[in-house]
């Protein structure tokens, strides 16, 4: 009698769980069906905070839409606008659009990450990816300048001040925690960064990444979105003009 009661209880729980799963899938499909062109398999759109306001990031819904304007160009003079390798550095991960969406929804929203438009301000002013802040590569590639120090502080780096020789020695020997620390900076609580520029032909974010690695910013906290503005626009994704 006890066993059959247990079995019945188990069956009820299973049925309840199945119904719940079906309902969840149905909910997701209902949301997705409102839009013909979703962001990814799971998301029709996402919201990102840009300059204090919420911006809906979605794709252009017209299946016949074709990219026009500057980012539709297939070639620029090379050098200097040459195709970039897939990886800036073997220690830095290269990511695509879906990973950027994921980053926007998690690290960026939770203030644990920053989306960096590493282009010069004149590019940024003409349009950017929602949620991005403009820290030009010229700032990130000049180690030791006040601008560079300020940027690293924004990223969550802490200047270490005077570090004693003994402490440095103990860190070198592994007796003191030296993870994500350099002689000058403590990057233990530094944010994750996604850096991007104009796309595969752009060398601005690769230069910025190289600058960050040079000052000892942890490579596992740096991500390179190689597609940049060109691929972002190719997929008809929302862009914003700063200040508008």
């Amino acid at each position: 009698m006890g066993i059959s009661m247990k079995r019945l209880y188990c069956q009820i729980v299973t049925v309840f769980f199945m119904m719940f799963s079906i309902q969840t899938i149905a909910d997701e499909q209902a949301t997705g069906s409102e839009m013909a062109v979703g962001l990814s398999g799971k998301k029709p759109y996402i919201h990102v905070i840009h300059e204090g306001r919420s911006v809906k990031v979605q794709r252009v819904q017209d299946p016949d839409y074709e990219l026009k304007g500057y980012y539709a160009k297939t070639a620029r003079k090379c050098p200097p606008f040459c195709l970039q390798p897939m990886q800036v550095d073997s220690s830095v991960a290269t990511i695509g659009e879906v990973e950027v969406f994921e980053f926007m929804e998690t690290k960026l929203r939770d203030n644990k990450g920053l989306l960096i438009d590493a282009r010069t301000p004149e590019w940024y002013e003409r349009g950017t990816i929602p949620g991005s802040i403009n820290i030009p590569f010229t700032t990130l590639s000049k180690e030791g300048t006040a601008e560079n120090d300020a940027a690293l502080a924004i990223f969550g780096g802490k200047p270490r001040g005077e570090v004693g020789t003994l402490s440095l020695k103990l860190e070198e020997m592994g007796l003191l925690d030296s993870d994500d620390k350099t002689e000058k900076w403590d990057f233990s609580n530094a944010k994750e960064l996604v850096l991007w520029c104009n796309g595969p032909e752009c060398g601005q974010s690769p230069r910025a990444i190289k600058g960050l690695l040079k000052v000892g910013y942890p490579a596992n906290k740096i991500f390179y979105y190689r597609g940049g503005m060109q691929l972002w626009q190719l997929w008809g994704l929302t862009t914003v003009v700063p200040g508008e």
Partner: protein
Amino acid sequence: MATQTICFIRMPVIRLRHQISVLLAMCLAAQLIAADEDPYLSAISSEAAKVEATAPELDSDEVNATESATEGPSVHAFEDDLKTRYMGTFTFYKRLPRRAREEIFEEYKDGASIDEIRKKIMDRFLN
């Protein structure tokens, strides 16, 4: 004695020569860096002038959609997101009174992090 004097004079001269050569090397390196970066910067700058400050062209329906999109996320989108990512928190959220749910949604719209939102939901639920 004469040899010693010559040595004393030579030492600072050698040191000075060394310092100058280091300085020259630094200047040369700085010049090389500047020469490398300046043409690149000017090329970037002239290329930027070709970019029109517009988002991709949208038809009128899409423009309307984009305009309304800037008003912020809908409650539906917020709840969907919460349900997908934090089912447990969503269960507690659904049990909150309407006013508390509205308050939490307003904070989400203003850019509160999901950690803060989750904490707030639990605070409201427990108190």
